[in-house]
């Protein structure tokens, strides 16, 4: 590999300011929404005592899961020593931190008492997976921060592999923790499955990479820097493998649940007669979010086409949000089995209804905007992006 030169983006163009202004508008709308929801109380949202986690959690968990996945590119380079990914490592760390920041913002601002964040930081119940997650998220910022420093500072480069291994291990534990938030909820039919932890890990691979690919292609296109097929096609193949792996986990999760008579109710609900959740599952998560992207990534007609790769990535992100919607909202909507062998006629036992309100959606989108604006500004101030990712720069043995 020839020497990779990193350079800041100029960030002076009209396009840059238009992007910042657009994202800023989303962030302002999110802050306005938060003020509206916190001032009035959650009665202005679609959430209730039965759907306690709504649209903001869908976005927050998506961003947090994608954050740990975005770090994979750096891990492949430093942990698994794949040189082609090395030039992408800095950006990978940055995207990971930005996504996590966006996700945590949404999570915190949807609390009943966001003003009590300090309580969450100082009072820990170590039996709580949520409390572990708070530690895991904070630790992620520190470890990835140090990792970036090792990569940026030439005399520290030699440590980047060991720090990279630490970061990789940490991110695996982090996503396991996020999946376990649901996996350990024994009372709810839709959750209570240990497979949720590894499923969230593999979901993070797919969502994080899809987001990373979009950031990479957009930044190279908008700054007119060369980005070769050697890099892009590799990422594209990897993305396909991850999407297929998510499908595999989803299949095992549902087949496993179907085997248990006690879970047949909730499985019927999600897979067959759950109305909006069934539609979202089949049309959104499976077809739009998995099968169509797989076809775009692998079919000879579209393979290697960057527009199609971009489209596939967007669909994977939408499919991921839909998947989390089905898991989080669908899982809560289905009532818990209070009296096995009995039917509840009155008082409980119906499907809970939920319609997301605009402020909830705007808060979620605000989290995405925060992640993107952080990336946009930081690539302007620090040399995250190689000035060229042309094929002969990335791989000297590349045959033209």
């Amino acid at each position, binding site marked *: 590999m020839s020497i990779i030169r990193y350079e800041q983006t100029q960030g002076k163009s009209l396009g840059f300011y238009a992007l910042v202004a657009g994202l800023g508008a989303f962030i302002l709308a999110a802050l306005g929404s938060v003020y509206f929801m916190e001032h009035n109380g959650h009665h202005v949202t679609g959430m209730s005592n039965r759907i306690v986690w709504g649209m903001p959690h869908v976005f927050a968990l998506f961003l947090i899961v994608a954050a740990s996945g975005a770090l994979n590119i750096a891990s492949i380079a430093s942990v698994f020593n794949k040189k082609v990914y090395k030039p992408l490592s800095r950006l990978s760390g940055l995207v990971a931190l930005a996504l996590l920041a966006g996700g945590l913002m949404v999570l915190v601002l949807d609390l009943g008492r966001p003003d009590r964040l300090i309580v969450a930081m100082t*009072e820990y119940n170590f039996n709580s997976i949520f409390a572990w997650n708070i530690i895991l998220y904070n630790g992620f910022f520190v470890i990835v921060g140090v990792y970036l420093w090792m990569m940026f500072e030439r005399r520290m480069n030699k440590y980047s592999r060991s720090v990279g291994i630490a970061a990789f291990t940490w991110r695996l534990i982090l996503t396991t923790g996020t999946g376990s938030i649901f996996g350990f909820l024994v009372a709810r039919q839709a959750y209570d499955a240990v497979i949720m932890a590894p499923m969230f890990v593999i979901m993070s691979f797919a969502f994080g990479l899809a987001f990373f690919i979009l950031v990479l292609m957009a930044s190279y296109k908008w700054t007119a820097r060369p980005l070769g097929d050697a890099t892009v096609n590799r990422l594209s193949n990897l993305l396909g493998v991850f999407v297929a792996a998510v499908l595999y986990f989803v299949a095992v999760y549902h087949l496993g649940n179907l085997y248990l008579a006690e879970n047949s109710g909730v499985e019927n609900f999600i897979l067959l007669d759950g109305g909006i959740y069934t539609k979202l599952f089949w049309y959104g998560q499976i077809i739009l979010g998995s099968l169509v992207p797989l076809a775009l990534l692998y079919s000879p007609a579209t393979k290697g086409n960057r527009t199609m790769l971009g489209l596939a990535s967007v669909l994977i992100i939408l499919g991921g949000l839909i998947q989390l919607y089905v898991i989080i909202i669908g899982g809560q909507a289905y009532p818990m089995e209070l009296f096995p062998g009995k039917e*509840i006629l009155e008082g409980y036992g119906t499907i809970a209804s939920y319609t997301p309100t605009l402020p909830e959606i705007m808060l979620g989108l605000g989290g995405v905007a925060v992640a993107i604006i952080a990336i946009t500004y930081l690539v302007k101030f620090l040399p995250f992006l190689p000035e060229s990712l042309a094929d002969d720069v990335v791989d000297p043995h590349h045959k033209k």
Partner: protein
Amino acid sequence: MEKTINRRDFIKTTTATTAGVATLATGITLTTFVNANENPVTNEKRWGMLIDTNRLTETDIDGMVSACQNEHGWGSDKLSTGDQKASWIKKLKVKDTATGRISNLALMCQHCEEPPCVDVCPTNASMKREDGIVLVDKHLCIGCRYCMMACPYEARSFVHEELTDQKEHMPRGKGTVESCTMCVHKVDKGEQPACVASVNSDAVIFGDLYDSSSKINQTLKKVQSTQIRADLNLNTAVRYSGI
């Protein structure tokens, strides 16, 4: 016990109370305190309730719900709609799918010995007293609602709106989670929970599960009773007979 508390006594008592007791302002506490010298909260007691669904009428259950509302001041939500409204105790009608037999029962926080809400709470706001009563410390609650996800009985409510005219002994706050306190403020004074007192028969019995001379202990030895979701091994303090 029935004396009015002056400021000095109040401070003295508060300092002597068990951990987890927080004060909002003079005279208002989040969890009612006991005088540690006279009536310490220990794990030698475990407060519990036995609900006999054969004897409990639908009118009884409606009475229990309104007694709870009057005691704690919930149920008059102005802006919350549908499932957003607070619900500390609810009436359930259950039909056996094989025999068609119908039972009516009241469902509230079951005050588990192994409460999932306490396990998952990140800030220790959900807590269990030594005598088994499960409470929310509303100073520590950040409103994350994870306890509501974890509770197998959907016994908890989130305050969805600003509240006014609250009961002095039961401050509630927008953005925090709340549930049945087993009327801890009355129990600590030797009284019965409001819902139990509202029923004019032995359909609901309240007492110390560990005390072999208590009525609840003796009845539980005689009659067949069950715990809702006994499969979860939570060892609930609220037991049911007749279902």
